[in-house]
Every structure is written in structure tokens, then in C-alpha cells.
């Protein structure tokens, strides 16, 4: 084990020099790691629990053509060339390719770079030891050897080989195996692209594995899980949109989540061979960033509602052109993976424009969501810039891509925005419902009030009508009878018996007026019965026999108190006429319904008196007949008289339905 002069030759001053260089560029973690390495160098027999951190290596590059599989065993001594000491992490920059050299895709110009790590002699440990490489990068293949034996090789494709996945390689896998003293890393890549490795760790599991785990979670699992969660929420938004097509924000949210998911595949896929070709995978994941920025642009438009037409066109145009131009259908054009560095520059420019314009518009309309999102977009562009530098090996390659974290934060912002919209919509609905209920209540109250007012008016109208009716009746009947009686009594031309007759007539008038106030419920017979009940004693006293021959008749719906009193008065008049003028001995009262012409109820009052001339009575007689006619007209009824020497037949025809009454 003496053929590793390089490790021996690292003297103290060299170490410190390198240490100082690293100190300027690296994080505290690396610095601490370096101290550990320093300790291992000064004390070769270190405690087994302390992991070794390699901040130095020696490299040897061998140029070739085409990719070649790594040998199963290799001895550092077999490699010819001069080993150069380098500090880790170490970036391999793309080489300028001599124009004379023809570079075709079947056998590209490649270079194999060997890293050699000298491991101090370690005491046998109870636990197996592991090699931990936080990051490595090549557009080809990586292979790891321990004491000349192949321990690990990346076995996916050349471009998508899992370069974002930290390596965790077991060293001591056979019984009694010693920890290797030399670690060789073989990095094969095209000459025109860069590559590199981070610093390397070696140690027992319990002291080292947390570093691997933390890195794996942050660099691989977190982007994977968050993008999946984002997509799940996006699907929810999609379903919302499918039901509410006018809410295009939900569709945009889904699109953002989808593009972000596609993009995030970059960060965790590649350990195994991809199910689709490298070209398509590259096309999808690189273009997804363009799509994402375009979607975010329209999302911002939605938030500030002042879409800039020129930017809409530019963003759409650039996105479509790049998406089409980079389709892996055209053999002539280099694929997007090769062009990605250039594409990302275009992307950064576009993203910055979108974020800046979005921020300005959002500030104008004071859209909090818009400001928030656009600001993060600008910050995200800085992240993107850093990622671009990392991709092109301009910054320490041991760092992680920040794009995935920028996506996570963006995811939270988007979710927050959608959450606010969603909750806002629910609140709106609640408020609308509440105000609706209130308005309904107000309307109900209004309605009740107006209903009450209407009823009051109706009531007042009824009262007033009733008053008018009674006034009229008193005036025409009772009043005039009493005044004329008074005149006669004043002149002494009336004996007591006559006065009593007049007064009895007045009382009968009053009784009928009172009876007319009782509801008769459309029952004409009840009305006739009442009349008989009131006039019966008077007829009896005159000795006239009454023959009551009423038959059941249809109800008269229009029989209100006013109409009832008119009918009572008409019939009362008929009786009075018979008693006063005809000297009849029998009165016959009959009812029947008739359906000739129209539907009528007919009341006939026939007497066996001496009769009278109807014409004379109407023209120069008293007010009796004309009163009957007037009242009959008022209720839409007809009255008629047939009279001869053997008696008179008085007829009252009443329409059955009210509409006919109205027509008259």
C-alpha cells in the first residue's frame, strides 16, 4: 500500500493554502468537514466513528471517442498520465472543441476523468462503512471503484442518469473485508459539456447517514412530495372548474400545478431508465418551465385584471415557438438538453418580464395576491439564475438546485390565493344568504303590513257601504213613513188605530233591516222565511191565509246584506200592496228555478184579490211599484205583474250567478 505518493506528499503548508481557498467559497459545513479531514490527516489512526471528509483528490483525464463501459477492475497504476491534485468539490468545465475534430452523435468526442482518493488506514469496524457523494454531475456515466474493484455505476441513460440523487454506496460488503485504501471515481462525459463531483464522505453509518438522509429529503423527496401534493390540489381545482366554467382561475391553478409537477421530475427521476426517451423527457421537463411561466402570467392577469396585450402575445409566442422548435422530431436540430443552457437564458428573461409587469400592475390595482405572487416570481428568477449558474458549473457544484424550493413556496402562495378565493366565495354565499333572508323578512313584513292596511281599508269600505245602505233604507222607508205619519197626526186626520198601523209598519221595516244584517249565506229561502216570520203576525191579524209553497232552489252567491235587504223590501212591498189594496183572502208564495234563456230563481206571490191595472199603477200610482222596479234594477233582477179581476201574480226573477248580475 505504498503506491500513493500523492497522499504522502500533501504537506502542511499545501493543506492550509487549500484550506484558505475553500474557506473563501464554502459553507460552514464544509469548513467543519475540512477540520475533520485535517484531523484525520494528522492522526491517521482516527476513531472509527468519525467520518472522513475528502476535500482533495487527484484527477487524470483521458480523451476519447464514444462512450465506453467502465472496466470491472482497474488499478490506478494502470492509468497513464499525470495525476493533478484538485480541491473538492471540483467542476469540470466544457472543453472548446477544435473545429478540425468531427463530432458526430454516433461517436461523440468524450473524455473520461478519473478522481483518486487516498483513504488512510482505518481500523476494522464492527459496522460496514459507506461512501457518500452528495452531488455529482456528468452527461455521461459515473463509476466508483474501491481498491480497483467496481462498486457502483450509474446505469440509466447518459443524460438522465440521476445526477440530482446523492450517492450512498456500501463499501464493506463481504466478510472480513477491509476498507479500501484507494477510491477511484470514473466520470465519463462529452467533451463539450461540463461535469464534476462534490466533496466525498466516508464513514460508518451511524455517524454519516444523517447527512445523506437530510440531503436526500431536501434534494429529492421534498420536491417529489410537494409537486405531487400540488398536483392533487390542482386536480381538485380542475374539478371545481369543470363544474364552474366561468371560474378560469381554477383551471389556471390546475395548469400551474401540472407544469410544476412536470418540471419537478427533473429533481427526482433518473436513477432508473426512463419510460420515455431522453429526448422527450428533456423536451417535457425543460418546456414545462416555459408553460409554467406562461400560466403564471395569465394567472397574474387574472389577479390584477389588467392584461398587457403585448406581453400576452410575447409570452404565448415565445412559449409556442420554443415548444415546437425543440420537439425531438427534427433530427437536424440539436435536442433541448443540449440547448437547455440557452433556453434557460430565454426563460429567465421572459420570467423576469412576466414577474416585473405583473408586480407593477398588481401594485397599480393594489391586488395583494398579485403583489405577493409577482414578488415571489422575481425572487424565483434569482433562484433560477442560481440554478443556471449551478447547471453550468459557475458556482460550487455541491449546492442544491433551488428551483424545487422556489416551486414549493410558489405552491404555498398559489394555495393560499386559492384558499382565500374559496373561503371568500363561501363567505360571500353566506352573506348573500343572510341578506337574502333579511330582505325576505323585510318583504314579508312589508307584505303583512300592506295586507293589514288593505284589510283595514276594506273594512272601512264595508262599514261605510253598510252605513250608506242603512242610511238610504232609513231615509226611504222608516224616515219617510214616520215624517208623513207625523204630518197627518199634526193635522189631526189620523185616529189611534191608523197611527198604530203606521208605527207597526215602521217596526216591521226596522226588523227587516236588522234581519238583513245577519248573514243568510246565499240562502234565498232563509230570506223568505225571515220575511214570513216578520210579516206573518200582521197577515194573520188581517185574516189573510198564507200558502207557503217554496221549493229548494240553487244558492245565490251574490246575496250580500245589501242585496238581501233589496229583496226583502221588494217582497215586503208586494205583501203591503196586497194587504192594502186587493182585499185578497189567500196569498200563495212559491219559488222555483228556471233554465230558460238564463238560469234564474223565480219567486211568485199570487193573491186572489180584485187585481189592478199595472199600467195605471206604474204611471200614476204611488211609489210602491216604482220602488220595486228601482230595487230590482239595482240587484240585476226583474219584477213583473199579471193582474186581472181574479187576482194578481207578482214575479221576481233573480239571476243565479253573479256574472249575469254584472252584465246587466
Amino acid at each position: 500500500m505504498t503506491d500513493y505518493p500523492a497522499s504522502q506528499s500533501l504537506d502542511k503548508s499545501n493543506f492550509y493554502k487549500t484550506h484558505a481557498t475553500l474557506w473563501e467559497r464554502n459553507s460552514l459545513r464544509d469548513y467543519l468537514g475540512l477540520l475533520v479531514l485535517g484531523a484525520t490527516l494528522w492522526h491517521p489512526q482516527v476513531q472509527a466513528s468519525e467520518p472522513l471528509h475528502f476535500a482533495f483528490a487527484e484527477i487524470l483525464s483521458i480523451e476519447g471517442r464514444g462512450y465506453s463501459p467502465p472496466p470491472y477492475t482497474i488499478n490506478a497504476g494502470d492509468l497513464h498520465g499525470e495525476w493533478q491534485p484538485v480541491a473538492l468539490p471540483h467542476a469540470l468545465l466544457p472543453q472548446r472543441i477544435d473545429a478540425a475534430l468531427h463530432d458526430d452523435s454516433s461517436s461523440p468526442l468524450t473524455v473520461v476523468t478519473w478522481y483518486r482518493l487516498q483513504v488512510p488506514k482505518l481500523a476494522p469496524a464492527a459496522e460496514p462503512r459507506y461512501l457518500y457523494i452528495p452531488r455529482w454531475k456528468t452527461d455521461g456515466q459515473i463509476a466508483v471503484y474501491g481498491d480497483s474493484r467496481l462498486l457502483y455505476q450509474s446505469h440509466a441513460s447518459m443524460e438522465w442518469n440521476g445526477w440530482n440523487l446523492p450517492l450512498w454506496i456500501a463499501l464493506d460488503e463481504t466478510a472480513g473485508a477491509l476498507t479500501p485504501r484507494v477510491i477511484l471515481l470514473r466520470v465519463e462525459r462529452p467533451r463539450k459539456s461540463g461535469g464534476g463531483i462534490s466533496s466525498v464522505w466516508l464513514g460508518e453509518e451511524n455517524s454519516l447517514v444523517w447527512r445523506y438522509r437530510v440531503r436526500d429529503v431536501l434534494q429529492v423527496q421534498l420536491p417529489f412530495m410537494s409537486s405531487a401534493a400540488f398536483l392533487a390540489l390542482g386536480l381538485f381545482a380542475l374539478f371545481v372548474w369543470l363544474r364552474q366554467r366561468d371560474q378560469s382561475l381554477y383551471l389556471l391553478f390546475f395548469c400551474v400545478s401540472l407544469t410544476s409537477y412536470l418540471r419537478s421530475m427533473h429533481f427526482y427521476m433518473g436513477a432508473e431508465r426512463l419510460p420515455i426517451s431522453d429526448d422527450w423527457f428533456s423536451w417535457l421537463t425543460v418546456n414545462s418551465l416555459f408553460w409554467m411561466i406562461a400560466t403564471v402570467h395569465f394567472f397574474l392577469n387574472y389577479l390584477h385584471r389588467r392584461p398587457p396585450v403585448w406581453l400576452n402575445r410575447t409570452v404565448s409566442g415565445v412559449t409556442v415557438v420554443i415548444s415546437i422548435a425543440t420537439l425531438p422530431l427534427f433530427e437536424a436540430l440539436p435536442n433541448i438538453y443540449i440547448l437547455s443552457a440557452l433556453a434557460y437564458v430565454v426563460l429567465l428573461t421572459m420570467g423576469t418580464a412576466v414577474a416585473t409587469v405583473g408586480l407593477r400592475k398588481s401594485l397599480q390595482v393594489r391586488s395583494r395576491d398579485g403583489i405577493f405572487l409577482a414578488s415571489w416570481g422575481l425572487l424565483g428568477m434569482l433562484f433560477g439564475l442560481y440554478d443556471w449558474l449551478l447547471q453550468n458549473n459557475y458556482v460550487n457544484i455541491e449546492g442544491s438546485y433551488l428551483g424545487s424550493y422556489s416551486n414549493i413556496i410558489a405552491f404555498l402562495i398559489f394555495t393560499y390565493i386559492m384558499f382565500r378565493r374559496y373561503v371568500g366565495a363561501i363567505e360571500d354565499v353566506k352573506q348573500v344568504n343572510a341578506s337574502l333572508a333579511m330582505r325576505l323578512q323585510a318583504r314579508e313584513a312589508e307584505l303583512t303590513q300592506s295586507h293589514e292596511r288593505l284589510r283595514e281599508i276594506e273594512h272601512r269600505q264595508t262599514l261605510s257601504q253598510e252605513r250608506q245602505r242603512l242610511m238610504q233604507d232609513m231615509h226611504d222607508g222608516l224616515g219617510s213613513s214616520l215624517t208623513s205619519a207625523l204630518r197627518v197626526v199634526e193635522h189631526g186626520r189620523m185616529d189611534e188605530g191608523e197611527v198604530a198601523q203606521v208605527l207597526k209598519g215602521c217596526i216591521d221595516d226596522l226588523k227587516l233591516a236588522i234581519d238583513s244584517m245577519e248573514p243568510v249565506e246565499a240562502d234565498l229561502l232563509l230570506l223568505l222565511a225571515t220575511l214570513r216570520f216578520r210579516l206573518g203576525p200582521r197577515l194573520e191579524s188581517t185574516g189573510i191565509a198564507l200558502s207557503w209553497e217554496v221549493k229548494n232552489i240553487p244558492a245565490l252567491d251574490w246575496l250580500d246584506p245589501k242585496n238581501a235587504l233589496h229583496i226583502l223590501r221588494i217582497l215586503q212591498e208586494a205583501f203591503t200592496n196586497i194587504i192594502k189594496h186587493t182585499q185578497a183572502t189567500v196569498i200563495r208564495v212559491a219559488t222555483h228555478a228556471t233554465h230558460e234563456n238564463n238560469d234564474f230563481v223565480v219567486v211568485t206571490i199570487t193573491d186572489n184579490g180584485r187585481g189592478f191595472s199595472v199600467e195605471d199603477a206604474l204611471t200614476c200610482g204611488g211609489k210602491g211599484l216604482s220602488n220595486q222596479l228601482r230595487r230590482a234594477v239595482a240587484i240585476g233582477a226583474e219584477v213583473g205583474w199579471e193582474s186581472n179581476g181574479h187576482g194578481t201574480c207578482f214575479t221576481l226573477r233573480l239571476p243565479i250567478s253573479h256574472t249575469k248580475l254584472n252584465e246587466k
Partner: protein
Amino acid sequence: MQRVSNSSQIRVALVEDDVHFQNALIEAIGAAPDMTLQSVAGTRALGLQALDQIQADVLLVDLGLPDGSGIDVIRAAHTKWPGCNIMVSTTFGDELHVMQSLEAGASGYLLKDSAPERMVFEIRSLYSGGSPISPLIARQILMRFRQDDKSAAAPLEPASGKPALSAREQEVLEYITKGFTSDEIAVMMSVSRHTVLTYVRRIYAKLEVNSKAEAIFEARTQGLLND
């Protein structure tokens, strides 16, 4: 019936503040050989006081008394003089006055403008178990009992204590609403006129019981009475 033995005279008690009607009635009763006037009271208070005397056969009460309603006198008489025929005197025989008197326990009414012979006739008729009725009152009673029928599904409901009208009673009332006199109804139903009038009396009694049951029911639902 504990009728005073000294004669078959109908003893009439009068509660009436109208002097003219008082006189008319005193005259009419005086002219009637089978009637004597037991007492005359002009106020509600005196009318109630008169109930402490020996029970009259017919009590004639005016509703509008100067110191209160004659209804109170009717109620008191209905309990104190259980065998007495109570009659309300009214100007118009209008439904409002008559119905509340019937519900208080009266079994007839007398129109104040009736001729003297008519008054005596009515008192006699009431005494012998008949009751007068007008078509409007008949209609009102029919409706009252019909409502009860509707409110309770059972044809007879002894639980509520409300009596129902018999078919004959209902028939009588229906004839009356059509204007037929008790004589005519008697012919149509093949009974005597007196029977028709006793039907009416029974109907009035049911109305009174009915209204009392209703009052108890009301009180019970309002929690004024328990059980």
C-alpha cells in the same frame, strides 16, 4: 214539578225596566184568567233578589237593565229556579240577543211589540213546554252543531259532554229555515204542533249544555280549571 197547589195558575215573574212594557204585560196578564203576576223587578239587583222568593213558572227578563245585563239574572234563575221557564223580552228578536239568552238558559223569547193576546199566548206556550224559534236562530243553531260535528270525528262524543242534534230535531230546524210554521211542520212530520215546539225546547236545552261544555273546555284549555 212542585207547582203551587192553590190553583192551576201560571205564575209569572217579570224583570223589566221599561214602564210601558211593564204596564202592557201587567194588563195582558191581568186579563188572562190562567195567569198571575208574582213579582215585578225594574233592575238587575232587584231581579236577582226576586229569585229568593218562591219559584215562578215563567220568568220574563229584559237584557238591557239599568244596572247590568239581564243575562246574569237568566243564569242565576237557571240554577235557583230549575223548573222555571225563562223567557227573554226583546224588541227585535235578533240573533245576537236571543242566542246568548238561550245559551244562558232561557228557553224562549217574547217580542215587545207583540199584541197582548200574542204575549199571553207565548207565555202559555212556553209554560206548556213549547219554544218559539225564528228562521235565523234555527239557521244559527244548525251551524253551531254542524261545526261541532266537523271538529269531532265521532258522531256522538260523550267524553266532551256535548250533546248532538237528533235527526228529527235537525229536520225541524231545516223546515224552520225554509219558512214553514210549526203547524205546517207538524203536518209534514206527522206529529202534533206541540211536539214540534217541544223539539225546539229540547234543541235549546242542548244548546245551553253545549255552550256550557264549550265554556268548560275553553277554561280547561286555558288552564283555568284542572280536570
